[in-house]
């Protein structure tokens, strides 16, 4: 992508400017997006992202600059822009920041068998049409279907003044289908959106017609749903995307970016109980072919499986290089960024609660009155206060140990430190789901996940 000679010159020049560490991140990403709407191809776009990010670290201070101009002059100018941001004067001393880089652990299988770029557009369009037809065939209430195909082949090169030189090619694809069910006066939607760190072979594992049918089914159910009540009650959150709760309520507060800024409710809590004893959770970048998996993070650290919580005890944070240095912890391969336009920051990868021992059927049977959140939407959290909220996109009341009528418009709110302690049942079957997480270093692909679990008291916001 960039010649080694140019890179070496940049690293050398950066060292003479007095930085402890000079890091260059080069990215070339090819993307394609196809959108079907009204059963017609509405949009076909694709192209190239390319840029170079240069980071200078001095102690705990970092300065970052990026550009598309990869000429030697353009890169030197960018380096100088980064240097202008450091607070210490230029000196001739060359120092090497020490960092404990863990050995490469088990790596995920991430190679594509059939590259997405080798597949004709017609084959990709066929996926969209099949999902569209299947969704519409579920019933006349389905008035609109949107189907989308996304592919991204991201090539990165990371070099730094400690001699690191790492490259990775990340091929990802995603399929999104949204169905809209309408009656005379209202609309409701349902969405399915699987993705993977794979090539075209991923679509051999997907039944896109089934996805369309499931999206349509959720939209139709919600059309007949009544408004969710408000109140505090037990909530059973189903497996898979229900894991967004842990991601929001807990995950962000375990990123060292928030810990080092004293903006996390879990600061200083390593080794202490932060969850019910039946809760164990990990963040794992090494899962084969999963959407959030990486071979190396965006600082060049090998990905790993990080035990976050074990039997309720907080075991580890997720750390990037700077977080590891500041907290005197080993980096966990969690330094991530959306693109060269961002400096890396500690982020999640595939984050999930581990299976327990209670079946979903038993959970429901043991709940007198509550909410069954079968499918979740997105949410948000304030890591500094622990306050979170997230949407239930398919919910059912539970009455006397049985699932009752569907309800809509529910939002779950609370605090991360409370919800973890109030989990009293954990299911046996883990599910993972794909999403995009937005934070200080942009939007990155992540898996969320969990088995079904019950929170014995949670605030449900609905329509009274």
């Amino acid at each position, binding site marked *: 992508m960039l010649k080694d000679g140019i890179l070496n010159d940049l690293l050398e020049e950066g060292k003479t400017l007095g930085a402890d560490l000079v890091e260059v991140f080069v990215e070339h990403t090819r993307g394609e997006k196809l959108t079907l709407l009204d059963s017609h191809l509405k949009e076909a776009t694709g192209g190239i992202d390319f840029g170079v990010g240069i980071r200078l670290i001095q102690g705990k201070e970092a300065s970052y600059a990026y550009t*598309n101009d990869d000429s030697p002059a353009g890169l030197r100018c960018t380096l100088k822009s980064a240097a202008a941001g450091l607070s210490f004067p230029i000196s001739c001393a060359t120092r090497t920041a020490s960092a404990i880089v863990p050995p490469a652990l088990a790596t995920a299988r991430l190679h594509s068998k059939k590259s997405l770029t080798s597949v004709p557009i017609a084959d990709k369009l066929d996926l969209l049409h099949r999902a569209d037809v299947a969704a519409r065939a579920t019933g006349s209430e389905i008035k609109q279907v949107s189907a989308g195909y996304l592919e991204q082949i991201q090539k990165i090169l990371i070099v730094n003044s400690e001699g690191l030189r790492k490259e990775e090619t990340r091929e990802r694809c995603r399929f999104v289908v949204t169905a809209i069910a309408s009656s005379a006066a209202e609309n409701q939607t349902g969405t399915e959106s699987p993705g993977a760190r794979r090539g075209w072979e991923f679509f051999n594992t997907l039944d896109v017609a089934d996805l369309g049918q499931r999206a349509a089914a959720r939209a139709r159910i919600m059309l007949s749903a009544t408004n969710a009540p408000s109140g505090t009650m037990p909530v059973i959150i189903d497996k898979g995307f229900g894991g967004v709760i842990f991601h929001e309520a807990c995950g962000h507060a375990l990123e060292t970016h928030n810990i080092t800024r004293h903006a996390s409710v879990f600061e200083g809590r390593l080794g202490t109980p932060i969850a019910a004893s039946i809760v164990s959770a990990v963040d794992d970048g090494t899962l084969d072919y999963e959407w959030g998996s990486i071979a190396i993070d965006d600082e060049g650290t090998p990905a790993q499986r990080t035990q976050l919580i074990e039997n309720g005890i907080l075991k580890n944070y997720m750390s990037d290089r700077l977080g590891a240095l500041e907290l005197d912890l080993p980096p966990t391969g969690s330094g991530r960024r959306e693109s060269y336009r961002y400096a890396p920051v500690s982020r999640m990868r595939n984050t999930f609660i581990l299976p327990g021992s209670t079946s979903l059927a038993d959970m429901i049977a043991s709940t007198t009155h509550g909410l069954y959140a079968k499918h979740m939407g997105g949410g948000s959290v304030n890591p500094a206060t622990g306050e979170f909220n997230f949407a239930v996109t398919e919910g059912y009341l539970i009455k006397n140990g049985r699932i009752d009528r569907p309800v809509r418009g529910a*939002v779950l709110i609370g605090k991360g430190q409370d919800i973890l302690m109030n989990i009293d049942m954990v299911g046996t079957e883990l599910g993972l789901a794909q999403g995009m997480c937005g934070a200080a270093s942009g939007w990155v692909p992540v898996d969320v996940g969990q088995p079904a679990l019950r929170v014995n008291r949670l605030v449900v916001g*609905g329509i009274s």
Partner: protein
Amino acid sequence: MIPKLLKEFLTQIRSQKQADEAEVTFFSANASQVKVFEGKQDAILTSSHQGLGLKLWQGKRWGFAYTERLDPDSLATALHLARGHAQVSPDDPCDRPQPQQAPPSAAAPHKNDTVPITALVRHALELEAGGRTAHPSIYNISDCVVTSSHNSFAIANTLGLEHGFTRQTAWANLAVLARKSEGSETVNPWIERFADSVDTIDYTGMARFVGEEAQKRLAIAQPSAGEKIVVFAPEAGRTLLRRFEPAFLGESVVNHLTLLADKLDTVVAARHVQLIDDGMGLPAHRPIDAEGTPTQKTFLIQDGVLANFLHNTYSAAKLGQKNTANAYREMKLPRGILASNFFLAPGNLSQLDLLHHSGDGILVTELTGASASPVSGDFSFGAIGYEVTAGQLGRFLNNFTIAGNFFRVLQDIELISDAVEFETPGMWGSTGSPYFSVKGLSVGTA
């Protein structure tokens, strides 16, 4: 504003008959940003970035590609991709390139295009210091950032269109953590302010605001659940409007994604409600939209009646309605619609009088979460605010929910204050809201 290289590229496409017509949109951005923490620089960012979108037409079909590399090989790749996309696209006769409609205005004088990092550092440190001392309950600064950006957009096509505009904006964010005492609940007041230059942002006022909010939030309470009168402060009002802006877009009507589709010229809101989009106004004035059409002021709702949708040339042609010059593009987006200065028009009550007349209810200052559907109108947000009793502000209320339907809210708006506050403008626009009250929304609480 379009680099010569790209104009030559267009000429080449035409002369080599690679397309019937072609259009390039060129984006460039330069920014500097400083984050400080505990009296020191925490993270510095400087950026210089550009890219182009290439749209071409073959008969009634069009194709699109983008690239951040502007060398001849990369442009050729983009052309190849765009031609490939055109081949698989259906006929779309309503999507056409536009000729020049207005002469390019003289380039606006740039104020301080390149802001020295040292200036941003100085202001950020000043802001953080002010935040730390704004109130004794403040124990940490969770965010202190000062940013200066200069963005430009240009469009040119084989019909002779050539136009563009620039935007220079500076903004600052300050978020603090406060608590009554160690171990008590933490609150997180924050503020964002913008200006043309980092030198003219009111940093002292920002620190004073977070200090006042920290004090007001020391006594934390929960509202009682039920249906209540809700007053939206401008920040919360903007969130609501922004989330439901898509319901007013022409493309939502074309794609059957809005319940307003067949409601033109019918009453959709209380009679004193005006919802406006003004491309010529502040804070995000721009001379053209992303197709080069001169901008205008459009009433979406006038005296409670749905008067217009927002259009680009495509949706206007599809629906047989007038283009409102709201075309929107990004480097990777070949066609879109976006509001410009989008706001609920002010009424005639001062903020204080509005509260006095509200009786008992809740003042919502912030909405959080993602549960809002422009397709159905349903929303359910996390919220913070203050109780209102007999028209007086009372205790701070934390982490509750409000739920309802946006189209119902429009009809239930009762009182509107006399000043609109806008958010930091982006390249294409900004959203604004006054204070306004709604007669009944569901409140959920712990």
